[in-house]
Each structure stands twice: as C-alpha cells, then as structure tokens.
C-alpha cells in the first residue's frame, strides 16, 4: 500500500520573467493531485538544485521562454547528478526549437513540452513516467 504523493518543483531559471505558463501548470498539477512547490522566476540552476534536494521532489519542471534553455536546463540536470540525485526526473518546457531537443535529451532532460502541449498530456506523462520514491 503506497500513500506516496508525487512532489514536483516548478521553477523558472534565468532572466525570463514570463511565468503565466508556469502558473497555469502549477494549478493544473495541483488539480491532478500532485504537491507542487512553486518558486517562480529569476533563479540560478544552483538555487533550483538546492531546493529540489530540500524538498525531496520526484520531478523538477523547468520553464524557459527566453532562449537560454541550452545552458540552463543541462546545468540543473548536471548539478542534481553531481549531488547524487540522478533519480530526480528533470523535464522542461517553453519556446524550444526542434534542433535543440536532441542536445537537451542527451544532457539528461527527460521530456520537453512546447507550445501546443495540452495540460492533460503533461499530467499523463508524469503519471506514466514518474514513480514516487519508495
């Protein structure tokens, strides 16, 4: 019997201040029964990694609309790996060109969601791909 609840950290790394999308997703995850830690805009990868460990999350969701994803997303994934937290699933979303995706996957980002992705598809992906820790 598992009472495990999925815990998700939603954060916006870098200088991008457009967080409407992230807030919509936070609300959607709440309604899906997840516990969402929302930390908003303007964060360094170091801050995001530190918070992920303090909150013992299963998923880190990164949102970036400014074009800096190629540096910021892999950096978060790397910091988590360095701290031995390879089990935390890192996903990303935003304005991400097709050509950048392969690199991001290689850097350890497990899934990328771009404009047009439905809220249901996000929830479904998490439910199918994330097992809360035993």
């Amino acid at each position, binding site marked *: 019997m*598992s*009472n*495990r*609840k999925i*815990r998700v950290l939603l954060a916006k790394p870098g200088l991008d201040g457009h967080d409407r999308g992230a807030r919509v997703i*936070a*609300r959607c*995850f*709440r*309604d*899906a*029964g*997840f*516990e*969402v*830690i*929302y*930390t*908003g805009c303007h*964060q360094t990868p*170091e*801050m995001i990694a*530190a*918070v992920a*460990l*303090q*909150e*013992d999350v299963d998923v880190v969701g990164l949102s970036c609309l400014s074009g800096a994803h190629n540096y910021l997303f892999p950096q978060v994934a790397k910091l988590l790996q360095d*701290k031995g*937290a390879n089990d935390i699933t890192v996903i990303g979303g935003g304005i991400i060109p097709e050509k950048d995706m392969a690199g991001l996957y290689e850097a350890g980002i497990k899934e990328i969601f771009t404009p047009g992705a439905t809220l249901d598809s996000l929830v479904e992906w998490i439910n199918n791909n994330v097992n809360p*820790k035993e």
Partner: protein
Amino acid sequence: MKELSKKVLEGDIRAASRLIRNLEDQIPNTYIAMQEIFGKTGNAHVVGITGAPGAGKSTLTDELICAYRKKGDTVGVLAVDPTSPFSGGALLGDRIRMLRHAEDTGVFIRSLATRGAMGGISKAVGEAIHVMDVLKKSKIIVETVGVGQQEVDIINHAHTVAVVLVPGMGDEIQALKAGLMEIADIFIINKADRDGAGKLYKETLNMVNMSKDNKNGAQGWRIPVLLVESVLEPIKFAESVEALRDKIDEHYQYLIDNDLLSERMRRKTTAELNEALWGTILQPILKDLHADGEINRLVDKLLTKASDPYSLAAEVASKYMK
C-alpha cells in the same frame, strides 16, 4: 529505515527531507527511524508564525531568517500550505518569498501540505520539528497555513507563538474572541503603514491589557504588540524584524528563567504520545475494519437504526481490547 536515520544524523539534507516525506506519507516502519532520533531532540527553539492568509507570514519568515543568520543561528523552516479537499494536491508557494536563502547551508526550508489536518498545520509537523532539531538547527520556524479564528494546533508544537495581524480585518469585537487571539506570545501588526493600523494597534493593546495574567499562566510575560511597516522600505523593515527576533528570544529566555519551558514541553509531549497511541492502537483496528468490509456492515446498522454508534464502538472495543 535505520540507514535513513543514520544519514539524517550525519546531516544529509535529502535524507532528512525523505524522512519527513515518509512521515507525511505514513510509510510503514518510519517509526523505526524516529526511534533513533527521538532521544537526540529537544535542543532547538521552536517558533510559530501564524495569521490570516496574505497577512505576510512568509515575508516575515524570510526576513526573520536573515535576522537569525546575522546573530549566528542556524534556521529550519517548516512552511505549511493547504491540501485541496478535492484533488488531494497542493500548491506550496511559501518559499517563493524565501528564495535568497536557497543556497545557504545554515538554512533548511521544507514545504508541507496539510493533508486534511484542520488545525493550521499538518500531522507530520511535530515529527518534522524533531528532524530539523537533530540537524542541529538552533531556531525552527513553523509557518502555519493562513488561519481563521480557531486553527490553533501550533501551540502544541511551538515554544513561542507570534500571531500576525493586518489592518482591515474586523472591529474590536474580533480582538476579544477566543481562539487565535488567545494563543499569541507576541502580536505583530504587519503592514502597519496601511490605514487602520493605529486603530488595530490600540484594540490589540487593549485586549492584551485586559488579560488577567497575560495568558497561559505565564505570569509576568507582557505580550508585546509590535508594529512592522512596509516591506518596500527594506532597511526599516529589517530593523523591525530584528526587534521581533529579539522579542522572540526574550520570550524563550523568559520561559527558561521561570521554569515554564517544561510546562510547554509536557503539553507538546502529551500531544505526541496521543498521536502515537492513536497510530498504534486505533489505526490498525480501523484498517482491519475497512479491510474486511466490517465498517460498511457497522454503518448499515446505524443507517437502519438497528444500533447506535456508542454500542457499536463498545462492541468493537470488547473484541480488540483484551
């Protein structure tokens, strides 16, 4: 589980957070880890920050962390936000006000959802305080959910309770009511630059002056009413929060000097024992009743008025308690 408590005692943050999570999720055998930890607790000063939604609890907590770090304290924060009664999910947004401490290793912030608890905190808070305690945090701040009038469970866990009030929430009759207004060791009038703050200050002061022995038998502690003004004037704001820090510490010293700490510890420990008894005795019985559908048969008996809750409870008790 022993492995987990060992890591926690070594100061591993993620292990500590996982242990808190096991407590929240009520993972079986988590108590084994807690057994290892319990004996080493009781060193931290636990501070409760409570008040209405949007009163400024998280922002005050953020500044209070700075004030304590300045003094050389290490700080643990348990920030509680509500669980949805519909989806079971939660939006934990307190730490958005505390981002500047993310990388400070002297500060450990953990968000918790209420998970259905109605007293302003979550069921796991008491145990989470123990976890923060063995991580050697000298100050543990518990920020409750935004409360109304009677979510006062924080008094079972905190040595010092600060109640945050803001102008514009009601007339002076509100200040006379039982519940939240009775549990303060310190009142904070936040957003004191706003209209109505002076009136609220006077009403609160009046109410404090009327209390016979300044509450809970803590004779001689005069409940201070502190004004904190706009966060938009950072220097002034920081100064008022430093004054708050000093009052909080003064209250703790007062409890120690007057041998009142033991009284609070007894209340806290009694509550913990109650919880443990409930978990150990009642929960397995309930689980049993649910597992074989007996609970439905009992409810049916009540719906048809074939029996009453009191007789059925006695019946169940006689079966299990030998």
